[in-house]
């Protein structure tokens, strides 16, 4: 049947496709998106061109050329992205030529598939809802192609159909096995967020100005005090006189020594972390992690890391004990004694301090006193430092952020012969009482040190000495009004936006816990619970079934069938064409019209009509039997009846 697509439908398809191209930006090089959009625009000049032009041939040549380009760039993009690119190419070139309803079939299915693919790249609730809306819009257009003309009824029917499929969605979500992905999603070259592998003086100040979420934590038990919430993410052990770098040994996966934490005296903390996309492997943990979920693995220096760079929101469960960190590796002490020759004044000061201190603890005490008594300041905007950054900070500027104090302390300790290293991570977080989770943003980024004493790495936070409120009450408590303004994004100043943003974040939290976090272990739990309640469930199910059967039976008893038997028979067997019958036309009249369109079946239709009339209007049982038989015998022929448009 030849049905031309309306302008509106074609524009809708274009809109959906452009939206998909936008959503799949990660899988598409910029030049390719541009080519696709240009190709899409080509539809209009092509439509105007003379009918002599072989449009199909033209598009095929263009598509073949683009395919060649894609093949050339295959190495860069990877096979998965390549597949998406081909699908998009086929969809776009289809849309360029499409005229008839008949041709839109493949296009629609490809659109559905591409929209589903978008979910691979996005997990946040807002974009998920947007993709869902696009899916529904596609469905609506699909429906509109085939539905009858009345607008309102159509939406109603679509709504009904969706409502009917809702239990299937739920069942698939809850019960479908969580298979491992069949392909590996290539890591995008997207920007790394969070703490980097190198800690410059100044890098944390920059990070703190970002309002984005780093991770959320849920505690299975009471919330530890703020002073205990030192989330370790990176351990910096290489120092070049100016900046700190993660030691290369941490790149390798090392075997973990025996668990040394004294779990009897120190309380165990069980918690779940939902880490946001960072595109790096390092994750967050408190103290010494003892038990790991299988999505993460232990890393050197008792850190935790993901098996692959975190390109999707990652949820993992940990059990930690809040003690000093044990020694991980025999070379660790030696590694953390190395000093750079860049800061001679600092070295002299360290020797001076060490002379009057007999232990590491005493030296720490001396350094604290130094910071407390000398005019040192805590500021978000410290002056820039030269190459001898520690000397410049300790003796000239005396103004710094947490990383300045941490690296100065670590250098002082090293110069005095005590192994020390800088730890980067997050401190504190915002606790949401109602939703029961801790929200940790980039602005909570922090640096402190660990020094080796009593056979373990003890933590020490020089910031707690210079600005104790930073640890107790959070960053805002320490900063001046100007600095607070500098931190706050403009929209956060309006309380209504702030409130809305916060509510959206909470929604996002529930989404990630209940929808994204629903993994196979939770599924297993659900099965176990179902099994435990199987008897009650079976009884309930049986009861429900009985009620439904009774209800139907009652209904059946109360009201007769809507139509008489012959009518039902004819409607069933002429299902292919009956929708073309005008409401007011009676069936015999319709059959007369139908005969005109199907001359080959005229005698069959005549016979059917005669039997139908006698069966329905004269209540002739014999005719009814004959009609049933005739319909059954010719059901295939009847299914193929033509109806021209």
């Amino acid at each position: 049947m030849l049905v031309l697509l309306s302008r509106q439908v074609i524009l809708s398809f274009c809109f959906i496709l452009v939206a998909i191209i936008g959503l799949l930006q990660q899988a598409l090089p910029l030049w390719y998106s541009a080519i696709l959009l240009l190709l899409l625009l080509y539809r209009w000049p092509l439509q105007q061109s003379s009918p002599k032009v072989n449009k199909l041939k033209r598009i095929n040549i263009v598509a073949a050329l683009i395919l060649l380009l894609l093949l050339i760039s295959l190495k860069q993009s990877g096979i998965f992205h390549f597949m998406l690119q081909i699908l998009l190419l086929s969809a776009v070139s289809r849309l360029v030529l499409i005229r008839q309803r008949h041709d839109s079939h493949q296009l629609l299915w490809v659109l559905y598939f591409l929209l589903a693919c978008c979910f691979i790249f996005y997990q946040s609730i807002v974009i998920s809802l947007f993709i869902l809306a696009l899916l529904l819009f596609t469905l609506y257009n699909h429906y509109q192609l085939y539905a009858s003309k009345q607008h309102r009824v159509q939406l109603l029917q679509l709504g009904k159909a969706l409502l009917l499929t809702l239990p299937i969605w739920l069942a698939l979500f809850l019960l479908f096995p969580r298979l491992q992905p069949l392909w590996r999603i290539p890591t995008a070259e997207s920007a790394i967020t969070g703490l980097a592998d190198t800690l410059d003086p100044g890098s944390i100040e920059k990070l703190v100005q970002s309002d984005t979420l780093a991770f959320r934590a849920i505690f299975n038990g009471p919330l530890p005090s703020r002073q205990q919430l030192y989330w370790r993410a990176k351990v910096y052990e290489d120092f070049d006189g100016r900046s700190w770098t993660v030691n290369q040994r941490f790149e390798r996966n090392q075997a973990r020594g025996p668990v040394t934490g004294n779990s009897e005296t120190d309380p165990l903390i069980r918690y779940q972390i939902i880490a946001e996309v960072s595109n790096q492997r390092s994750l967050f943990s408190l103290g010494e992690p003892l038990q790991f979920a299988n999505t993460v693995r232990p890393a050197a220096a008792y850190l935790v890391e993901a098996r692959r760079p975190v390109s999707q929101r990652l949820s993992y469960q940990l059990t930690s004990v809040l003690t000093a960190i044990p020694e991980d590796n025999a070379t660790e002490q030696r590694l953390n004694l190395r000093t750079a020759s860049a800061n001679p004044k600092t070295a002299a000061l360290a020797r001076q301090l060490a002379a009057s201190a007999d232990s590491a603890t005493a030296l720490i005490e001396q350094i604290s006193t130094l910071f407390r008594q000398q005019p040192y300041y805590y500021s978000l905007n410290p002056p820039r430092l030269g190459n001898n950054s520690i000397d410049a900070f300790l003796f000239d500027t005396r103004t710094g952020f947490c990383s300045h104090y941490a690296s100065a302390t670590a250098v002082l300790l090293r110069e005095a012969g005590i192994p020390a290293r800088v730890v980067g991570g997050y401190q504190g977080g915002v606790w949401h009482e109602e939703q029961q989770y801790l929200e940790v943003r980039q602005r909570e980024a922090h640096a402190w040190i660990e020094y080796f004493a009593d056979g373990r790495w003890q933590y020490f936070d020089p910031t707690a000495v210079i600005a104790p409120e930073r640890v107790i009450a959070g960053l805002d408590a320490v900063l001046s009004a100007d600095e607070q303004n500098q931190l706050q994004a403009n929209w956060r100043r309006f309380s209504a936006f702030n409130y809305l943003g916060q509510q959206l974040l909470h929604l996002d939290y529930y989404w990630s816990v209940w929808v994204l976090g629903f993994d196979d272990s939770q599924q297993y739990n659900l099965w176990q619970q179902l099994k435990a309640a199987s008897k009650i469930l079976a009884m309930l199910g049986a009861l429900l079934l009985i009620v439904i059967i009774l209800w139907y039976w009652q209904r059946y008893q109360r009201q007769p069938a809507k139509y008489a038997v012959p009518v039902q028979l004819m409607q069933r067997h002429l299902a292919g064409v009956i929708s073309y019958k005008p409401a007011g036309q009676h069936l015999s009249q319709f059959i007369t019209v139908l005969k005109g369109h199907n001359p080959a079946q005229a005698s069959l239709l005549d016979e059917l009509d005669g039997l139908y009339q006698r069966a329905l209007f004269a209540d002739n049982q014999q005719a009814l039997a004959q009609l049933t038989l005739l319909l059954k015998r010719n059901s295939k022929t009847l299914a193929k009846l033509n109806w021209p448009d």
Partner: protein
Amino acid sequence: MLAQLHQIEQSLNQVILGKPQQIRLALCCLLAEGHLLLEDLPGLGKTTLAHALANSLGLTYRRVQFTSDLLPADLTGISIYDARSQQFHFQPGPVFSQVLLADEINRASPKTQSALLEAMEERQVSTDGETRPLPSPFFVIATQNPLFHAGTSALPESQLDRFLMRLSLGFPARAAEHQLLLDDSKGSRLQFLSQQLDSDTLQNLQQQVSAIKVSDAVIDYLLSLVDASRSRNDMLPLSPRASKALLRASKAHALIAGRDFVIADDVQQVFPSVAEHRLDPRSSAASHSLSQIILEQTLCPL
């Protein structure tokens, strides 16, 4: 018997050329024992049709030309004092015949028009405190000019409702008019009537109409048509009398078609003629717009 009926139909078609559908509906109306209203412009043959119908049914008929000064007594009859017997003697009017041809009925005063009401519905006439039954069968075949013509007064709704059908012949097709003109010299077209029913056969046929089978499905469809008119405010609702009339007309239509059961098509065929003048009394007979709307918009699952 049915063959006789068909022959009559054929000969009527000889008299009124090119209007087989209207003729079938007119016969249908009479078989259903209903009164018939013919509405047309002057000169389109409605009086001829009325005459031909009355003739071919083999019934005694009287024709009354309605005028504005026609009195009710001119229709029903009057009691005259007979000096010889010193008694009032009832002189029956033209209404006391089997077929009353009421020509140009809408030219009479409303008073006279309503004198017909009792006769049409009750098939009896009350004068001077006495009720006199009309002969059986009793038909009124009335003709009227369209309402916009000078000197007409509209029939009240109540009276319109008593006509089973309202028909309009309309202009003949060119070929039919050609034939008409060719035959002009041969005299009145009524001479083409070759067949007559007798009174017994007519009664027999009318009994057969009553015996036509109607399935529940058809009655449901008929009711949904009637219901449709009741749920709208751009037309008058159809009364139960109208639905009864619709059913009888459908049955008669089935009989003429040679069936002993009513099909949906019967209902649809007679519906415009039966319903239109009840849906909108001011409409002209040629327009079937309201009834067509109902037919198109009411779902016919049959």
